[in-house]
C-alpha cells in the first residue's frame, strides 16, 4: 500500500460522492480522509443523511466514488472491474445488514456456506467451518431451518456467521441492531466484540445505536458528509 503502513486496512483520501436526485445534486460525502487499522472495532455515527451508509458502501466497493481514492487491504478499489470487485468482496469483506438479507430459499447452513462455495472451498472444510461457527453463535440446532422460521435475532446471528465464516479482512455492519430489541442487540454486540477480540477481525459499524457507541473503541462522527469528530477510546 503506497499510502499507509502495513497495519492500515482502509485508507480513503479526499473521497466525495454526489448523487443526482431528480436532477438536483446531493453531496452525500465530501472529502473524507479516513484510515482504519487492522483489528479495530469502530463505529461511524451521525444523524440520518450524514453519509454513514454511503461511506460504508464506498469502502466495500458496493458504490463508486465521485472523486478521491479508496484502498482496502492494499487494493485500490477504483482500479478494479466489476468481477474483480465481486471476487474482492467475496474474499475480503463480510457484510451484516440491518434487514439481515439472508437468501430466503437457502437453509441456515446453506446461507452460511454460500460464500465458501463461491470461493471453491472443499465440502469437508465447508462443513467443518459451518458447524464450528454455528456452534459458536448458538445456532447449532438451526442448521436446516429456513431464515423465515427464525427470530430476528437468530437471523442476524446467521448473518454474522455468514460474514465471518470465510475469514474476511473486515466486517462492515450497517445498522446491525436497528431491527432488534435492545436485549438481543446487546447480546449480538457483545458477541461481535468477543469475536473481534478473539479473531482480530476488523469491525466497522454504521449506526446511531447508543449500545454500539458504548462498545466501540473508536467513534467517528459524520455530519453533512464530513468527519466532525474522530474519538479513540481506551
Amino acid at each position, binding site marked *: 500500500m503506497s499510502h499507509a503502513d502495513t497495519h492500515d486496512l482502509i485508507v480513503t483520501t479526499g473521497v466525495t460522492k454526489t448523487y443526482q436526485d431528480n436532477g438536483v445534486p446531493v453531496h452525500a460525502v465530501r472529502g473524507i480522509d479516513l484510515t482504519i487499522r487492522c483489528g479495530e472495532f469502530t463505529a461511524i455515527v451521525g444523524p440520518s443523511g450524514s453519509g454513514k451508509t454511503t461511506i460504508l458502501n464506498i469502502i466495500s466497493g458496493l458504490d463508486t466514488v465521485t472523486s478521491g481514492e479508496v484502498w482496502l487491504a492494499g487494493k485500490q478499489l477504483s482500479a478494479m472491474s466489476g468481477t474483480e470487485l465481486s471476487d474482492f468482496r467475496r474474499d475480503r469483506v463480510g457484510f451484516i445488514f440491518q434487514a439481515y*438479507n439472508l437468501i430466503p*430459499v437457502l437453509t441456515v447452513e446453506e446461507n452460511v456456506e454460500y460464500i465458501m462455495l463461491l470461493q471453491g472451498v472443499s465440502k469437508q472444510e465447508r462443513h467443518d467451518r459451518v458447524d464450528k461457527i454455528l456452534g459458536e453463535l448458538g445456532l447449532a440446532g438451526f442448521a436446516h431451518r429456513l431464515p423465515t422460521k427464525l427470530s430476528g435475532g437468530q437471523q442476524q446471528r446467521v448473518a454474522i456467521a455468514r460474514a465471518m465464516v470465510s475469514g474476511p479482512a473486515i466486517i462492515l455492519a450497517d445498522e446491525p441492531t436497528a431491527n432488534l430489541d435492545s436485549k438481543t442487540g446487546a447480546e449480538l454486540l457483545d458477541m461481535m466484540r468477543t469475536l473481534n477480540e478473539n479473531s482480530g477481525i476488523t469491525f466497522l459499524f454504521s449506526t446511531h445505536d447508543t449500545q454500539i457507541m458504548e462498545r466501540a473503541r473508536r467513534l467517528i462522527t459524520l455530519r453533512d458528509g464530513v468527519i466532525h469528530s474522530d474519538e479513540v477510546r481506551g
Partner: protein
Amino acid sequence: MLTMTIAWRNIFRQKRRTTLTILTLLGGFTLSAISIGWSDGTYNRIIEMFTRNRLGHIQIHAAGYLDRPSLYRNITNGAELGSRIEDIPEVEAWTPRLFSAALASVAEKTSGVQIVGINPEREARATRFDRKIIDGRSLSAEAAHETVIGRGLARTLKAGCGDEIVVVSQGADGSIANDLYTIVGILESGDAIQDQASLYLHLADAQELLVLAGAVHELVVIASSLEDVAQATEAIQSRLNEPNLEVAPWQEFARPFYVAMKADQQGSWIGLFIIVLIVSIGVLNTILMTVLERTREYGVLKAVGTRPGQVFRLVLYEVWIMSIVGVTIGAGISLIINYTLSIHGIVMPQAFTYGGMEFTHYYAEVNARSILIPAVTVILSAVLVSILPALRAARVAPARALRTH
C-alpha cells in the same frame, strides 16, 4: 451447483406465478405439438391417399413419357425391371400399367375413357385395387375380356355389372382397335374426376387391344413408407441405371400436388410462430416481474461476492427449469391427444374435396418432430426472452439494490 439449487427453490417461492408460467409454456408447447401433429397427420394422409391408393410413391417410365405421354413411349421389359427391383428393402410392391385414350359405348351411350391396363393381382397388392370395388368384383387373374369401370363412367353410360361395353381406340400399328368386354365391377377410387373416365382392363387384354404385346407405360412402385421414398428412388435408380428410363418420386411426377401441399404446410408455420410469440411475451412478463421484485436479493448476492455472470445464470436456470417442466408435461399431454386423434380423428364440419378426393376427417400423427420442434422452439424462445431480465439482474448496482424494499 448452489446457483442451480437457488434457482430450483426460487421457482417454488411464488407458486401461483410459477404455475402460471409453466402453464403458459405447457399450453404453448401442447398447442404447437398438436398443431404440427395434426398438420402432419392430415397432409400425410392426403399424400398417402394420392400415392398409395392411386399414383404410387415412385413411377418408372420410358424417358420423356412424363413430359409428353405417348402410346409409343413405352417399356418393353416391364416384368424384368420389376423383378430387378422387388428385393430392394424399401420397395414394398410394384405393378405395371398401360394407358390409352378410347371411346366406350354401352347400348346407345358413348363416352370418352382412359384405358388402364393392369395386373389385377399386383395392383391389389400395390394400390389395394380390389378394395375400391363397390359393386361386382375385380378382374380375373387371367385375361378374360373383362372390365372394371369407374362409378362416374357407369353413371354416364347407364351401365352396370354384366353389361357389355364396346371399346374403340387406336392400335400402336395404326389400326383401329376395338373389342367387346364384360363389365364385372364398378369402382370408386376416391377421385371422382378419375372415376368418370377410368376403364380398367387386364394388362394382357389392353396389350392385345392396343397391339402393344409385352409393353407397359408405367411401373408403379410402393415404398415401405413415405419416409422411405427418397431412399427407395435412389436404390431403384442405382439398380436399373438405364438412360432410357426415368425413375421419379411422387414429388416429381405429381409436382403441382406436391407444391400445393408444401404451400399449405408453410402456412401452418405462421400459426406456430404466433403461439411461440404469445408464450414468449408471457414468459418475458413473468420473469421481468420476478427480477424487479427480487432486485434487493440480487443486490445482496452481488454484495457478498456473487459474480454478475452467476446472477445472470441464476435467472436463466429458473426459466430453463420451468421450460423443461412445462415441455415434459406438455409432451405427455400432446402425445396422448395426438395418438387419440391419429386413431379416431375429428369429423370435419364440412367434407372437402382435394384433387378429386373427398376428405371427411382430420387425423393427427404421432411423430418425433411434433415434439422436438415445439420443445426446442419453446425452450429456446423462453430462454432468449429471459436474457434481457437476466442481464438486468446481473447489472444490478448492489448499493442501490440494497436501498429498495
